């Protein structure tokens, strides 16, 4: 709290300008193209999965999570039960625990409610930008974080809606390979999450185990159970592999 009042008192100083809301908006700009294209693709996929424009707007405003929205669209199109979709998304988004935990030391001085506001729009991308900022400055300003998060949010929602509107006019998305936006997005996320760490061999073992379990259980039981079983078994295998080494 003390830090916050000093920041307010010095808003004219140049060092505090670097941590303002507007600066957060500016630091978000490099990620906007990525958001726009993926958000646009998500909108198209959601539309072709049979969601109405209102449902898509609601989903991007309330759920606001790229991979979760792709998964929801894919599973809705497959006719999966609601509970299965929600449980899969719970697992997919459990990784936010790690992101939120990693930035929590920088916001320790804030009240729980203000920490809630910092976390509510946290994504992989804004986390990436924020943790870089923390590495440079040794701290993250609350206002800067809001600037970053809100810019990403508005851009995502706009891209989603634009994609959905375009999706209306595409009668056969398969002809343009657009149905491949979803698997290609998962391929990209898989490769990025492996390359972003220094445990490539373990990650490849975990990935192959997950793929094998997912295919086996999908054919045997159902695709939804396949994803959940693959996650639980492969993450446990990952821990075991780490222990061996």
């Amino acid at each position, binding site marked *: 709290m003390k830090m916050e009042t000093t920041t307010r008192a010095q808003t004219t100083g140049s060092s505090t300008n670097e941590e303002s809301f507007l600066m957060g908006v500016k630091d978000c700009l490099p990620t906007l193209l990525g958001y726009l*294209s993926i958000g646009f693709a998500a909108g198209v996929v959601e539309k072709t999965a049979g969601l109405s424009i209102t449902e898509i707007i609601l989903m991007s405003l309330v759920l606001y999570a790229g991979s979760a929205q792709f998964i*929801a669209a894919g599973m809705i199109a497959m006719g999966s039960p609601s509970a299965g979709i*929600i449980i899969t*998304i719970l697992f*997919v988004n459990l990784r936010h625990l*790690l992101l939120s935990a990693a930035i929590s030391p920088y916001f320790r001085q804030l009240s729980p409610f203000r920490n809630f506001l910092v976390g509510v729009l946290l994504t992989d991308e804004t986390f990436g930008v924020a943790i870089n900022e923390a590495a440079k400055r040794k701290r993250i300003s609350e206002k800067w974080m809001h600037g970053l998060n809100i810019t990403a949010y508005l851009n995502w929602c706009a891209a989603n809606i634009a994609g959905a509107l375009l999706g209306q006019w595409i009668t056969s998305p398969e002809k343009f*390979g657009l149905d491949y936006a979803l698997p290609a*997005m998962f391929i990209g996320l898989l490769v990025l999450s492996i390359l972003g760490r220094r445990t490539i061999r373990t990650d490849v073992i975990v990935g192959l185990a997950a793929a094998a379990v997912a295919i086996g259980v999908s054919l045997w039981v159902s695709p939804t159970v396949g*994803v959940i079983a693959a996650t639980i078994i492969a993450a446990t295998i*990952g821990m075991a592999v780490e222990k061996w080494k």
Partner: protein
Amino acid sequence: MEVRSEILWIILGSAAVTLIPRVLPLMVLSRFMLPDWSMRWLNHVPVSIMAALVAQELLIQDGKLVPLTSNTELFAAVPAFLVAIATRSLLGTVTVGIVSLMLLRLVLPG
């Protein structure tokens, strides 16, 4: 333009299970730490989920294994993987994947 009640529940339920992991550590971590093993387990979750989803998307259709020789989605995954590794760009990966599949469908019958 209406919102079906089943879709509304899916959206609200997914939003709730997404919101909690986003805010909970920020709100409580100064008072309470997650046990170490759970952090190590969670560390493997993203790769597991993405690999499972990629495998399902590429290999299964209508609850059955797609024959390897006629699996255009699997062929299109090769350039997509290479571009992802070389460029680390989601946009590049998605674009190359889509274009590859479009071309493969033009070239290969059926």
